[in-house]
């Protein structure tokens, strides 16, 4: 929802790009012994809000996610971000393929 948490221990870490990604990586490490060097990423979403001060928050979130992944050494294989409509994605965990449909457009594979 937002790029950066207001403090190191927010009530909802998943609400922020920085603490959210950190939390996912911690779970992967703790539960599955997976480190950043084993990971690659695909990123989706970050559309513009329709109105208000949060209009550009999608772009800011996408920028923050790229920054964090780069810092963690996680390669971004593919991405589809931006626009003005919602995203629907299906991630096949066995193949790593993501089917992505942006509202009003055809489904594409990533």
């Amino acid at each position, binding site marked *: *929802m937002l790029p950066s948490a207001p403090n190191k221990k927010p009530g909802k870490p*998943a609400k922020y790009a920085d603490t959210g990604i950190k939390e996912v990586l911690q779970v992967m490490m703790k539960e599955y012994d997976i480190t950043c060097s084993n990971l690659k990423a695909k990123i989706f979403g970050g559309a513009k809000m329709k109105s208000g001060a*949060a209009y550009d928050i999608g772009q800011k979130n996408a920028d923050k996610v790229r920054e964090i992944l780069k810092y963690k050494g996680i390669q971004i294989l593919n991405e589809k971000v931006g626009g003005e409509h919602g995203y*629907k994605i299906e991630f096949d965990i066995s193949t790593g393929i993501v089917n992505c449909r942006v*509202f009003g457009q055809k489904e594409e594979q990533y």
Partner: protein
Amino acid sequence: MEINRFIEMVVKQSIDRASQVLSKTLRAGAKIELESISAVDISQATERMMAEGDKEVMGCMLDLGGDIRCKFLFVISSKDALIFTDLMLRNKLGTTEKLGQVSESAIQEVGNILSGCISNSFSKDFDISVMPSVPIVFTDFLGGIFSNFIFEGSEQEDSIWLVQAKFLVVKVQIECEMFLIPHTQSFFHLQNPI
């Protein structure tokens, strides 16, 4: 901050009035079901929506402002928006075949009428001034529209007041939904109206 019983009652009455106004607008009876009025965790609020997150809908969103602040959202499936358009224009059902400027305008006006009713209701019951803003209409996945809707309230807080009401237009068996997010701080002085 928990929702005061008085505010809860006023909100319920305003929703009842909204269903009467919707019936009058469409010249078709609309039943109302107030699904919830409570402080909810934003994760719970979005989880509920994500179950139908890829449903294609038309939404009308605006702000109620003045002595209190509140966000308003009306949503209807894209397919049913066509029927709404025909009802409003008193056309034979099936006349409007494609979404476009006319159906967008129909949903805009329904949102305008419902939000006007809600703001009038708050105005009378709380003796305050509340005005709706110019509505914005968009067609998108329900999940995207709802995320947009709750964003402002969720930016600073992890829980929001959420009012969720479902209308059923009986004649054509169409369901549509209305949501309100009262801005808690602006409602604070209404907690003890006397």
